[in-house]
């Protein structure tokens, strides 16, 4: 089975970025600036990459870059003692800023290799466009399109048609903080419509309460309480989640609707003013619940109420640690 490899990208811009990442990683490891470099390498299946932890400069060749580099690698950072180099996209670096503000990482212990992001692929969308019964054996990224090969078919699709929903409305594709920036900032703007960001949430808010509730109930009904959304979220790093507490037992695992609802509402409250809409929870959900509808709405509430956008100001304070007299309090009474 052919995988999509770095060399397959040839001399296009993505290939140049890949080279840049490899060179940076090798250089930083050689100079001893960092103890480990976290990036992506090819996965075992087409359209997949997997996180890789490089400690020797010669292994930097394993690093790849492309629209399937979906994982938010910053979630590994709090686990390392030494200095770490890490590849980040626009959304990843905002979670990194939050981790720094929340005292989980020290800024001087991380070397940030930023890449202006053109968006990542949503494999569900690829599958839907292709037909779910067709198995992909080989995938290639050529400039702005995706070449998919399988038994008896060869299909080309535009990447912009299969972008992850969070990428379509991304406002900060270029990392707001970095030590090294690899690539051209201008290309990151391509194919995105940030204005449409809250369209879905606003349309949903216009429905009658009954309709909203039944939609919510229907979506959440499918939840199997695997908590993959929580595990994937780079900002869900509690040592023991409220959902796992035994005393008091907030959530039961008998999978009743109210427990599932409480878990998801609790989770969205716990990421209020922190979530950066990286889409990790949405990608991780094995039953395809549109968790972004909840988090995006919370992001809008935070923005409208407190003029706060998470993860942009490395010198600022977390939202919940700030108070201004003009903060709205009409929701209390």
């Amino acid at each position, binding site marked *: 089975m052919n995988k999509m490899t770095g060399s397959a990208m040839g001399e296009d811009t993505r290939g140049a970025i890949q080279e840049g990442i490899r060179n940076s990683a090798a250089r930083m490891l050689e100079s001893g600036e960092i103890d480990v470099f976290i990036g992506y390498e090819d996965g075992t299946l087409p359209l997949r990459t997997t996180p890789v932890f490089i400690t020797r400069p010669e292994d930097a060749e394993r690093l790849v870059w492309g629209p399937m580099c979906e994982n938010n690698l910053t979630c590994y950072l709090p686990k390392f003692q030494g200095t770490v180099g890490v590849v980040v996209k626009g959304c990843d670096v905002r979670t990194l800023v939050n981790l720094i503000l*929340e*005292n*989980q990482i020290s800024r001087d212990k991380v070397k940030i290799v930023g890449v202006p992001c053109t968006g990542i692929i949503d494999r569900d969308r690829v599958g839907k466009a292709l037909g779910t019964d067709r198995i992909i054996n080989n995938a290639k990224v050529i400039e702005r399109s995706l070449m998919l090969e399988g038994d008896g078919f060869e299909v080309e699709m535009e990447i912009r048609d299969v972008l992850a929903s969070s990428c379509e409305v991304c406002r900060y594709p270029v990392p707001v903080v970095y030590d090294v920036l690899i690539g051209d900032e201008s290309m990151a703007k391509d194919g995105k419509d940030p204005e449409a960001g809250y369209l879905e949430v606003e349309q949903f808010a216009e429905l009658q309460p009954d309709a909203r509730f039944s939609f919510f109930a229907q979506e959440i009904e499918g939840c199997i309480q695997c908590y993959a959304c929580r595990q994937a979220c780079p900002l869900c*790093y*509690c*040592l*023991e989640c*409220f959902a796992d*507490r035994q*005393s*008091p037992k907030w959530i039961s695992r008998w999978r009743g609707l109210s427990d599932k609802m409480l878990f998801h509402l609790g989770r969205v409250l*716990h990421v209020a003013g922190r979530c950066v809409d990286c889409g990790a929870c949405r990608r991780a959900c094995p039953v395809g619940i549109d968790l972004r509808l909840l988090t995006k709405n919370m992001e809008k509430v935070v923005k409208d109420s407190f003029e706060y956008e998470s993860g942009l100001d490395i010198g600022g*304070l*977390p939202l*919940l*640690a700030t108070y*201004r*007299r*003009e903060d709205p309090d009409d929701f209390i009474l």
Partner: protein
Amino acid sequence: MPSMLQDTGFDARIGVYVCHCGLNIAGVVDVEAVRESARFLEGVVVVRDNRYTCSEVGQKGIADDIKEFMLNRVVIASCSPRLHEKTFRTLLEKSGLNPHLLEMANIREHCSWVHYDNHEAATEKAKGLVHSSVARARLLQPLSRTKGRVVPEVMVVGGGVAGISASLYLGGMGIKTYLVEREPSIGGHMAMLDKTFPTLDCSLCILSPKMVEVAECENIKVLSYSEIEKVEGQVGDFRVQVRRKPRYVNEEKCVGCGDCVAKCPVKVKDDFNRNMGTRKAIYIPFPQAIPPAYVIDDQNCRYLTQGKCKICQAVCERGAIEYDQTSYVETIEVGAIIVATGFQPYDPRGLPQYGYGRFPNVITSLDFERLICADGPTYGKLKRPGDSQVPKRVAFIQCVGSRSVASGCRGYGLDAETGSSVGATDPKAYCSRVCCMITAKQAFMVKEKYPDAEVYVYYIDMRTAGKGFEEFYQRGRHEGIVFLRGKPGEIEERDDGCLRIISEDLDSGCILDLCFDMVVLAQGLTPPDGLVEFAQKMNLSRSEDGFLMEGHPKLRPAETAIDGIYLAGCVQFPKDIPDSVAQAGAAAAAAAVTCSKESIEIDPLGPVIDEALCIGCKLCEMLCPYGAIKVELTDKGPKAKSIEVACKGCGVCGASCSTRAITMKHYTDSQLTAQAKAILEVV
């Protein structure tokens, strides 16, 4: 009693006492029904109702039950715990139980008083409150108190008559007292007054002996020209950072000879004389100032602004001039703080219809004090500012900036829309209490000095409640002062500088059209400049009117909600000199009570931090208003640590902890969820 049993609540033996509070509760709530509904709740062994649970009979009944039924938890359904929690905790302690095994259900303020019109629903709610208290009581745990040290010294903030009086009381008791004053001299507004009502004593003649006494008292240290920067700590053990502004004159060396003033080439407007006269850039606010040392106004001094001059240094024989002084912060430890920062007179430019600031002959009552004062810019001759003529017809207008609900203004110290502090120009809803008597006094003084002058007073109501006040007011009427009921809508200035007032005389119903040479606006009293920020530094609350909130409007008028911080004078609400002095005495007594203790018992209401759950995110540290929780690096990573003596048990850390690693000792999650469940079962 084995503590294991107390801890788990498995063997809770609860006594429930439902109070009638006379008819306060029993008049609305069916007390017997509430009592019976609690009888068979888990863990309850005895239920009773009392006419007055707080009475000696009521208390003895509980003490007897604790012995007879071997109670280990007590639930009292009565009034707010703010009133009697201490009473009943002491009772439990005397009966051999840990005082924190008490739970109170507030069925008076939270129930009978607010639901007086629906007896049945109130009874059901009372049952819910009692059941929830029983549920929480089962899970209560014995807690032990810790002790904090007491620094037997006091800081008084504000050197007006209230601050001076409080300092003298404390100094007289042998308590070391720091008197902090923002201005170069103590004295406050009282030092600016000419005479005081109703006795017409010369204001400085009675104040300056007290000021001298302050300077001479070895227990009082005056920190003039200084401001509070930061307050940390708690009752018994405050650390106050005081910013000392540079005088540029050595207080110890200066003897106040005045040679420097004579030679100083810079003349500026004199703020002590309400900008009506001039002073030099090196000055003393008034001759009786304490400390009796000169000060250089660094905004206007030629040397300090332009680098050339130094004349004062050349003429000062004692070498007291020190241009190189800089501001610095001094940290002072005290056990109690008295706040006596006074008031700010209302600025009538907020009511443009009266023309203050535009018409030179419209002045305020404080301007009048300086004009009539022998030490003022006119040496006591009442000359109107426009042309220095002595006015023949003078009008006073009452309630300028006070009682102004009609003009659409709130009494709030905060602007509801912007949240910013409202300036002194916004009219207030409240009555400033002293302006009627100030005007009665000033009108009398005009008549006294110029018997032929015509004096008119426009008023809404004359409020003369005070010893000798009504008699003084009547005396003014007999002297020929004309009191007209009706507040003028506006003042017009004629070409000759005279002021025309058209108003309705509400007593006769006539429209009056009168002209005056001078109009005095009886300005109200507003919260002092910078009180919003000051209150934030001290964690003090303000009431709707913007002044500082007392501990209880009737029973704790000189205290605040913060233990160890007390109030004196107009910072709490406008009041006259005798009331300010009386409150200063009360505040001094309260502060002395704190200082007389060897140690302070600290309520064990703070957080318990589960290190296994703490992720060290610092949210608690960032939010704690008392600096009572800090994240420290341990071998298991960053972990929060509680600083018990600084903690006030507000619970912000517990509520904000996203990992629920913080539990409030006396309000655990289990206790609160049990309480919530129980109340929902009844409803």
